């Protein structure tokens, strides 16, 4: 082998020639072929792969939609209707993109919840978790700007309300809002820059996803037991075991996705967005898309403008410091009998916020939103820091293999000896 070439294990001469000069095949084999993955994943571990697929679907459909979309206040609404009526399969591509946004948030919310339940944010995966929060923020910005593009009533008034949030900033708020708008109201300059950024940010997300995955492949995956693999008997090669398991999840995911697209494509949207934007008339009841409702509820729960904005952004920013708020050394909630109950209550509370966010901000709804906001923050700021000291966790299993295969599974004996378990890894 010539000096300077990578020592490639591949036999196929073409693959080998490339791999010696740019070892992408070696990398794929290492990171997605033989990559040692805890053997005890449940279906919650599908959702990272599903999110990745969803991102690709959004980019593919978005690129094709932008071939037909016109980013101008006078044409945007009509160009979207043209996509629905005249462009070949335009209705399909738009409905996939539209419902793909909802699917993306469903998948990512489950993915985040998986992290909360199994303690995936704890050392050594803090940075991995924080990169995930960055992706979540970028997703929210992208989704918000995408919703503005059809230039319907909800687009326009959603954009107006959300950009006005920044006017709460003391002293410079007003100037910042004018800067965001590029004028004195949400208008054509705003639409143009939102389209530009809506096209840009998904590729930024791709970049951060790459970092997210790179960080994951340094620490390795967490697992439902929350204990680290101690050796080959605790892991399986990623391929074929988890490529297949992810494929099973994908089938279910696509079934739900297809059901939304083909049978209830507008169920998660708002009919007012099929009315062209009218800067002179606000709809009676403005609500954001469903995935923003919990945070919208927090915004409205506070009777002070700046306070509401701070708490709303704080409700996501708090996730950045979660690895240090949770003082328990035990990752998985399976072994935290008290914290588990609080997390389930917090989860129900999240749905309460989502429900109340869609209600008018009046009467007892405000009180419910306020109580739910307190519960949301109390979990992070009071319950998790305190439980780390007060709670007595259940005994952790000795190893993943022991817990999964039963007490009789000893190294070199038992039903699946280490040698057999390791065999597919050598081959793959």
């Amino acid at each position: 082998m010539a000096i300077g070439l990578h020592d490639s294990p591949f036999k196929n001469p073409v693959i080998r020639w490339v791999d010696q000069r740019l070892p992408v095949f070696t990398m794929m084999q290492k990171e997605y072929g033989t990559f040692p993955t805890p053997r005890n994943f449940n279906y919650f571990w599908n959702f990272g792969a599903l999110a990745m697929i969803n991102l690709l679907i959004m980019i593919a459909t978005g690129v094709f939609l932008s071939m037909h979309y016109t980013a101008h206040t006078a044409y945007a609404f009509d160009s979207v209707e043209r996509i629905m009526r005249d462009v070949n399969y335009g209705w399909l591509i738009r409905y996939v993109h539209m419902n793909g946004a909802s699917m993306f948030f469903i998948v990512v919310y489950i993915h985040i919840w998986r992290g909360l339940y199994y303690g995936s944010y704890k050392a050594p995966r803090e940075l991995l978790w924080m990169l995930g929060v960055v992706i979540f923020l970028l997703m929210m910005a992208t989704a918000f700007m995408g919703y503005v593009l059809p230039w319907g009533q909800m687009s326009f008034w959603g954009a107006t309300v959300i950009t006005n949030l920044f006017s709460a900033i003391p002293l410079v708020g007003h100037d910042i809002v004018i800067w965001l708008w590029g004028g004195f109201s949400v208008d054509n300059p705003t639409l143009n820059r939102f389209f530009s950024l809506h096209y840009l940010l998904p590729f930024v997300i791709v970049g951060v996803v790459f970092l997210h995955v790179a960080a994951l492949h340094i620490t390795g995956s967490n697992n439902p037991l929350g204990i680290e693999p101690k050796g080959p008997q605790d892991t399986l090669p990623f391929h074929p075991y988890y490529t297949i398991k992810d494929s099973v999840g994908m089938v279910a995911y696509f079934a739900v996705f297809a059901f939304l697209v083909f049978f209830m494509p507008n169920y998660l949207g708002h009919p007012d967005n099929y009315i062209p934007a009218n800067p002179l008339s606000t709809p009676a009841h403005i609500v954001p898309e469903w995935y923003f409702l919990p945070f919208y509820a927090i915004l409205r729960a506070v009777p002070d403008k700046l306070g509401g904005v701070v708490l709303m952004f704080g409700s996501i920013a708090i996730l950045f410091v979660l690895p240090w708020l949770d003082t328990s050394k035990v990752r998985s909630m399976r072994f935290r009998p008290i914290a588990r109950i609080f997390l389930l209550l917090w989860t129900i509370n999240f749905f309460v916020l989502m429900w109340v966010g869609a209600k008018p901000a009046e009467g007892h709804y405000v009180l419910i939103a306020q109580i739910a906001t307190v519960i949301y923050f109390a979990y992070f700021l009071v319950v998790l820091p305190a439980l780390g000291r007060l709670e007595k966790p259940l005994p952790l299993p000795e190893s993943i293999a022991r817990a999964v295969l039963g007490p009789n599974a000893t190294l070199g004996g038992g039903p699946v000896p280490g040698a057999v378990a390791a065999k597919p890894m050598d081959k793959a």
Partner: protein
Amino acid sequence: MGGDIEVIAMAEMVTAQGASQGAGQPEATKRDFLKLTTTAFAAVGVGAIVWPFIASMNPARDVLALASTELDLSPIAVGQSVTVMWRGKPVFVRHRTPEQIAAARAVPLSELKDPATDESRAPRPEWLVMIGVCTHLGCVPLGQKPTDPTGDFNGWFCPCHGSHYDTSGRIRRGPAPSNLEIPPYSFMSPTQIRIG
């Protein structure tokens, strides 16, 4: 999980046995069947998903709806030419003089690079209707306005690469491979045509 591993390990063994059994006739295994059907199914699925994306780039229905143009011929005097848009391209409509018709019909087919009779190109000899796009690389030839150069054959001349067309719009000299194209058109009345 343990069961899965054993099954796969056994299947691998079966594959290995099958491969070593016959000389050049490895026995097809259940796994081969599963791989083939899965791959075939995935290929069909990918094709079905990719097709709408490709189709979306074809002309949309509103574009197709604009695929015909009507033109009133009555204001066009003898010797005059007009240019109309059809599918985003110029269409040359010329009310030819008797001299132009005679010149076009006098040319023997053997002199033509792309042989076509004038009768076939202009069923009503006084009206010549053609797509005004040079068949070389798509420029619009000159010759519609009285002040334009008309080339060596008194028809049209493409300034991009020097193609000369005669009074029937046939290529006579220059790099263009074929005559100016005749669009589909019909006379709705003696003074009204529909192109497309």
